[in-house]
């Protein structure tokens, strides 16, 4: 099974493997490609199998962005995602630093608590938070969803970064202390720069999961001005389907799909190492 040096003879032996991969590739290209082309066609062309026959229609995108508010949803998604990705790191990194590098009473308990928290179904915390946020009059502001995105991603991020911090050389703090560096300064100007890799990896990971989050957004972003892309798209799909504007529907799909797709094209190596690093250690 495991073997690393490719050769022509081996390529022949691996024909079945390549065939399976090719089927997957062709399926992906046809699906994404067709939707991409359909998003530039007219609805009539889609139904008569004549994609792009009358040229490229950017109007579909214009309609989706302006008439269907996708531009607004896009901006909302960007706000939710950027603010909470930073917030998650601000809360998690210091905690993970302590848990990964210092011995103290109760350390194991804190780590285990975060681990258990990761498997609690989200629905268990949604109802009370909705009630509390309503009584605080915070339903109807972006703040609620941002807070929720931060707290719901903290356990995984702490867990991921804890193991990352613990792999850095043990002597760093001692050396810094001898030089008269305070623990806060040590963390900020010595440890954080060294931990850049792990922080960026988990940051990208959080970015994608917040960008694609749907359930909480559906509950807490209950009007147009608050909706992120996912929830907005769902509403658009329903309305475009009923008025039969399939070209516009596919344009909206492309707008939602593109940002994470491009991010993934550029950063797939990092994203993948983040997932395997996070999951296999456990």
């Amino acid at each position, binding site marked *: 099974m495991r073997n*690393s040096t490719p050769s022509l003879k081996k390529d022949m032996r691996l024909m079945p493997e390549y065939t399976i991969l090719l089927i*997957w590739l062709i399926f992906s290209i046809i699906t994404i490609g067709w939707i991409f082309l359909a998003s530039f066609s007219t609805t009539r062309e889609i139904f008569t199998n004549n994609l792009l026959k009358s040229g490229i229609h950017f109007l579909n995108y214009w309609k989706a962005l302006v008439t269907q508010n996708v531009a607004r949803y896009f901006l909302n998604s960007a706000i939710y995602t950027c603010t909470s990705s930073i917030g998650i790191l601000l809360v998690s990194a210091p905690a993970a630093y302590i848990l990964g590098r*210092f011995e103290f009473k109760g350390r194991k308990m804190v780590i285990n608590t975060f681990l258990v928290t990761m498997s609690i179904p989200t629905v268990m915390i949604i*109802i*009370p938070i909705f009630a509390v946020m*309503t009584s605080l009059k915070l339903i109807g502001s972006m703040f609620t969803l941002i807070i929720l995105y931060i707290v719901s991603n903290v356990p995984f991020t702490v867990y991921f970064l804890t193991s990352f911090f613990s792999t850095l050389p043990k002597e760093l703090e001692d050396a810094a202390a001898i030089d008269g560096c305070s623990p806060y300064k040590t963390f900020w100007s010595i440890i954080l720069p060294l931990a850049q890799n792990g922080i960026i990896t988990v940051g990208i990971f959080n970015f994608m999961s917040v*960008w*694609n989050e749907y359930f909480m957004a559906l509950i807490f972003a209950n009007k147009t001005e608050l909706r992120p892309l996912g929830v907005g798209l*769902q509403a658009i799909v329903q309305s475009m389907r009923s008025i039969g504007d399939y070209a516009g529907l596919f344009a909206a799909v492309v707008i939602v799909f593109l940002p994470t797709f491009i991010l993934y094209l550029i950063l797939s190596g990092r994203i993948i190492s983040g997932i395997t690093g996070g999951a296999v250690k456990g």
Partner: protein
Amino acid sequence: MKPKRTFIIVFLAPAVLSFLLFFFYPLIRTIIMSLYFVKGVADNPALWKFVGFNNFINLFHSQLFRQSLLNIFKIWFLGGIVTIFFAMLFAGILTSGIRHKAFWRSLIYLPNTISAVALATMWIQFVFSNQDFGLFKAFFRFIGIQALADIQWTEPNFIFTSMLIAYCFGSVGYFMLILQAGIERIPVEFYEASRLEGAGIIKQFTRITLPLIRDVFRTCIVLWSIAALNFFVWSQMFSPNPDPNTITPVYYLFSVVFGSSMGTDSNFVNVGAGAAVGVILTVLVIVIYGAVNLVIPERKLEY
């Protein structure tokens, strides 16, 4: 080094406080709420009416809720077998020495990076579409299998299968990554030695790979189970209104607590019933953890 106490507290406080405020408190409140009849989500606890275990009893009497449990069982069991099988297959392919491994790996993981709403729309409006441009319809007609081309993928008798196919397709990549990382930690010498002894691929797989990745396998089962219990987006995308064919407990909870009318279901407008659904799911998580620990006990292997 012995760190200062205040330093530890300052650094841990935000994470621990967020846990206490946004996990611990809501968790306890949901558990208590499941024993009450609650009319509005935002109702003050003074308005709650204690009903003991009635919420749970009503849930298990509700046809729709029982159906939702059956559905996630099917998603968990059938979907789990299909997904883990294909994940294993692709992990095996990726570690077999093929060219451009990184490209193929990124390709198969791709669906995981797309918003589920966009992905589900692609499946429903293009791949499963009953229109002439529907991918499956066009493909099966092209290769001349009319019976398959005639399948109405999004009609009631096929909608669950369609949903499961689309969901599994999107999940394979994630589990493939985890399994592949596990396989790659196995020293190559094991395979070389076994080849010299005359072991074939199947034997290598069952005697070397499987036993050595059992901990990774365990992680996969736990992760898959949690995902299946929380199943929601796909169900809502395939059926914008709750439909017995695709409903799941979280969807049921969503409708009872936040949303659309459930027809004659007696749990409608009882937030307590929603809380009870959450408690049932949490109990199921614990049961699954227990079962996995029993069947595949953790065993740290050194190699």
